[in-house]
């Protein structure tokens, strides 16, 4: 053992070197974005695209709000995300409850139909759904941005699995105590499956905040742009104003990054649900 110690210290140092190297590769794009966001574009090109910021302008982040109208777009995104997360939670919880605890004719068939929608990506139904929104007059509106995502087979499935994990005894005890469905759901089922609900909420937030294709399709007026769509129009003005678009991109990723740092456990649980068995 004693002879092993120095070697393992070397191997530890080696691993730190490898991990640091990999971190540099992963972070390099973000670092360069920061460099470019902070640099004055014209000066940066004169200096021949160096690896460090030139003629630093810290006000670029506030200018993303004033010139790029980032605040309005962030607010739109926040409202839409809240609607989607709230809607998905509400529908998934009751649907999962029904599939897990209620006996009703056609339950298996209905559940299979639910799951089948998992295979249908929004891209396939995009044109038809956009046409529906147009007919409803919902283009450029909160309801148009949120409506297609208010129910989700993924969430229903996840929560159903969680509910099915509740021991029979607990259910029987609740019935004996005279709990109705709503009381059982609120006072037993939800508290017990809190980790699952939390994981689903985090993933739902991630998807809603980051989505691109759908909002791009139903938004035709600048003032209804979500933050992700706003990034496109900001970066379209690239060459001389590019730094503002880049600052905006970094700001747009911040809420989700915070999520990653503070709720990592839930996020990972949600993302890996279904991928790893056991």
């Amino acid at each position: 053992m004693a002879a092993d110690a120095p070697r393992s210290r070397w191997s530890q140092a080696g691993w730190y070197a490898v991990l640091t190297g990999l971190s540099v590769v992963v972070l390099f794009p973000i670092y360069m974005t920061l460099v470019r966001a902070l640099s004055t574009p014209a000066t940066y090109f004169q200096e021949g695209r160096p690896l460090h910021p030139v003629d630093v302008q810290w006000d670029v982040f506030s200018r993303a709000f004033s010139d790029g109208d980032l605040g309005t777009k962030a607010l739109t995104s926040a409202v839409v995300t809240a609607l989607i997360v709230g809607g998905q939670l509400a529908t998934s919880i009751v649907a999962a409850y029904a599939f897990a605890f209620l006996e009703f004719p056609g339950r298996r068939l209905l559940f299979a139909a639910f799951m089948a929608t998992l295979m249908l990506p929004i891209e396939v139904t995009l044109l038809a759904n956009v046409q529906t929104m147009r007919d409803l007059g919902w283009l450029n509106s909160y309801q148009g941005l949120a409506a297609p995502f208010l129910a989700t087979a993924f969430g229903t499935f996840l929560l159903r699995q969680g509910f099915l994990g509740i021991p029979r005894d607990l259910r029987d005890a609740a019935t004996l105590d005279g709990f109705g469905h709503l009381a059982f759901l609120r006072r037993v089922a939800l508290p017990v499956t809190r980790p699952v609900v939390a994981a689903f909420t985090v993933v739902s937030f991630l998807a809603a905040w980051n989505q691109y294709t759908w909002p791009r399709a139903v938004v035709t007026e600048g003032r209804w742009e979500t933050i992700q769509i706003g990034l496109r129009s900001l970066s379209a003005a690239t060459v001389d104003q590019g730094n503002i678009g880049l600052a905006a991109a970094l700001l747009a990723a911040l809420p989700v990054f915070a999520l990653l740092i503070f709720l990592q456990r839930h996020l990972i649980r949600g993302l890996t649900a279904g991928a790893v068995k056991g």
Partner: protein
Amino acid sequence: MLGVALAVAANRRLRGIKVFQTIFASTVASSVAVASVIFLVLVNPQIGFFGDVRFLSLAHTDSALRGVALSAVWANLGLTFIIVLAGLQAVPEEIDEAAALDGYGPLRKLFRITLPLISPTLLFLVVVLVIFGFQAFGQIEILTGGGPARSTETLVYKIFNRQQPLDQGEGAVMALGLFGITLVVSLLQIRLLERRVHYGS
């Protein structure tokens, strides 16, 4: 592949490993739009840091797709890392110890034992990432607009641009095609790779 490498590297007990794990997972926070804007800085021919690297150049029909692909690889790195790491952590430690007792070196252990054990996870990732590829839209629109000379148009990009009433029929056919292709490719992958996947008992 890179995601797997990251996960293998980060699945060990070291002081401060959590910091590295957070860094490796960090790209999961970047959306398609954010990743695309970030990569404009790197591979855009006029302003990009790698703008002069011919291999990734967005300005040429033969290389533009590689530039776009690079941004997608980076954006999906975090997700891949998180899922593979979870798979690795589900591998029981006794198996590790047994392999060490049998005199397996680290590399042999990795290829003969660890990777086969997490093969269901890898299969899932392959299928999902290929589907993501077929659905690519945002990165195309932001990075290249389908160009140059339409060399980077994806099916979704084509569908998206057929919203005028007269084009919608064509778009609908393409949408069905997209669904069909995705389904067939996914099933093929599962069929072909399933034989090599080890589900355990």
